[in-house]
């Protein structure tokens, strides 16, 4: 039985509320489409209360899965931090928006939706965090707003076991707990500074740029601008801001034209990993056999692929594919590369995502011209 049938059957048989009580509700909904990803999501709406983490755990136990679309005006900060950790543990993505039924029990995302105050903290739990960007193929922009931090509330959660009365007076404990939470979630601790600097009643509503810079939003749909960098004796084009390791490189080595996917994470076996999963070494070798590289709408054969490990600047793994020169030349007019394996199977298609990368918008073709003019010579 195919995954899509199981998914469609599940949505058909049990649409609507799975867990419903006071405070935030969780629903698993779908739009009725046949797809592996992007036609089913979880809705989380309402105030975050002390019961919310337990309700979410129950929701996940009953089969609820992500991505999770949040709409809430806030609630309890400590419950929001717990919820964030549970969302992260469940491997769910977070996004902001609202959903409404359009036919029978099928839902679709709608414009609007806001995630404010404590909800913004819960939002940080997503393995990928979409802010004001394309959500389930809809161009929606939900509002994300952080409130001034309630330090006393955070302290209460640990006061029973770990702190003396003197400790409770120390503001640094509150800072430490929240900053630790941010670091655990992979968010810039600068977010704390922004929140701490707010006047009572003030709001921190990050711009798209701030959301990316502070890692409040992740890169799923974000811009990964191309830029030039030098590589040995030549030039390469690479995606992402300075300091971003995961991305795509384009360069030439003598007469060979290469596209390479870089990874900042690897498991103990040395296999490249994203936030979600790791690619098996055997799978990498198999998937390149006879595969094609798609640059926008154009497809190119892959002559061979190569893997390099433990390079400088934090690159754990680099998987490069030798492609025709035209593949590099067509990059500026495209917004993504993907790979089509020779065999169309679920396993191979999953392995082929190793070369899937989006950068958001077309870029200056002179970047590639300069790369092709400045090949690495050896």
């Amino acid at each position, binding site marked *: 039985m195919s995954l899509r049938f199981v998914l469609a059957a599940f949505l058909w048989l049990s649409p609507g509320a799975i867990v419903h009580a006071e405070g935030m509700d969780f629903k698993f909904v779908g739009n009725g489409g046949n797809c592996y990803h992007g036609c089913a999501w979880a809705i989380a709406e309402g105030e975050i209360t002390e019961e919310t983490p337990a309700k979410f755990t129950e929701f996940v136990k009953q089969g609820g899965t992500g991505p999770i679309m949040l709409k809430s005006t806030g609630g309890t900060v400590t419950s929001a931090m717990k919820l964030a950790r549970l969302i992260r543990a469940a491997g769910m993505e977070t996004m902001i928006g609202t959903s409404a039924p359009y036919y029978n029990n099928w839902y679709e995302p709608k414009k609007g939706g806001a995630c404010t105050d404590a909800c913004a903290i819960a939002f940080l739990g997503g393995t990928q965090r979409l802010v004001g960007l394309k959500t389930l193929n809809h161009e929606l922009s939900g509002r994300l707003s952080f409130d001034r931090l309630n330090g006393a509330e955070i302290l209460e959660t640990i006061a029973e076991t770990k702190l003396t009365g003197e400790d409770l007076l120390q503001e640094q404990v509150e800072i430490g707990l929240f*900053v630790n939470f941010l670091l655990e979630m992979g968010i810039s*601790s*600068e977010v704390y*500074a922004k929140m701490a600097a707010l006047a009572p009643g003030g709001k921190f509503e990050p711009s798209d740029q701030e959301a990316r810079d502070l890692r409040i939003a992740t890169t799923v749909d974000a811009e990964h601008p191309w830029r*030039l960098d*030098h590589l040995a*004796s030549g*030039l390469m084009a690479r995606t992402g801001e300075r300091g971003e390791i995961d991305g795509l490189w384009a360069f030439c080595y003598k007469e060979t034209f290469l596209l390479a996917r870089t990874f900042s994470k690897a498991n103990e076996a040395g296999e490249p990993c994203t936030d979600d999963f790791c690619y098996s070494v055997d799978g990498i070798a198999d998937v390149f056999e006879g595969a094609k590289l798609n640059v926008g709408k154009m497809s190119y054969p892959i002559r061979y692929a190569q893997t390099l490990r433990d390079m400088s600047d934090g690159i754990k793994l680099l998987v490069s594919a030798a492609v025709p020169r035209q593949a590099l030349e067509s990059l500026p007019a495209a917004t993504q590369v993907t790979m089509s394996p020779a065999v169309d199977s679920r396993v191979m298609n999953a392995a082929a995502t190793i070369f899937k990368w989006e950068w958001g918008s077309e870029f200056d073709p002179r970047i590639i011209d*300069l790369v092709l003019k*400045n090949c690495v010579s050896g």
Partner: protein
Amino acid sequence: MDISTEVFSFASTASPDEFAYMTEAHAAELRVVDDPGAMKPWDILPLASGLMIESRSVDKQKAVRFFCLSRETGRVHVQIMNASDDGSQRLTNEYAQGTLDKFFFPRLGTFESELRYPEAKAQPLRLSFNRVLSEPESGFHVNFDFTMSEAEFRAVPGANHLYFWPGHAYVLDVNFWGQFVASKIPARMDSILTQIVLDNCV
């Protein structure tokens, strides 16, 4: 204290019984040391049919660029870019308030200046003044364009300051301009980068 809270992240890279040591440049970038004028690493940017390298200061008040227009001339352009407080073409410092850029009108076309290196080393430069230009679209309003020889450009790696002797500018009454026509130079310039600039003239 206006220190970047990225310091927390940096500190967490060390295990409990170890110290995490910060480089001088990193300390400036995170505002641990008070150096808002610290220069960020070089960016390589397309410029017409060639390229230029540019570094901006952490406080976005200053930038320095190198590029060449033609390899045959044997000259390399260096542009020192300044943002003004109010977006006008007036520059202000502690000695003078809001002097218009047109006051920068040197009597001599050649400036005695020097590249300064760590440990008090220096190499003299003879920069040719080309023009003053404004580039509000990039946030820099008063910019000075000079050229240097290819040999002088090849001496830039390792230098940390392009220094002007204000008295040698021969600009009457406005010697304070030296501050604006000088620039720190970021680390990580190497001979490969200088060669890339020379191989990709506009």
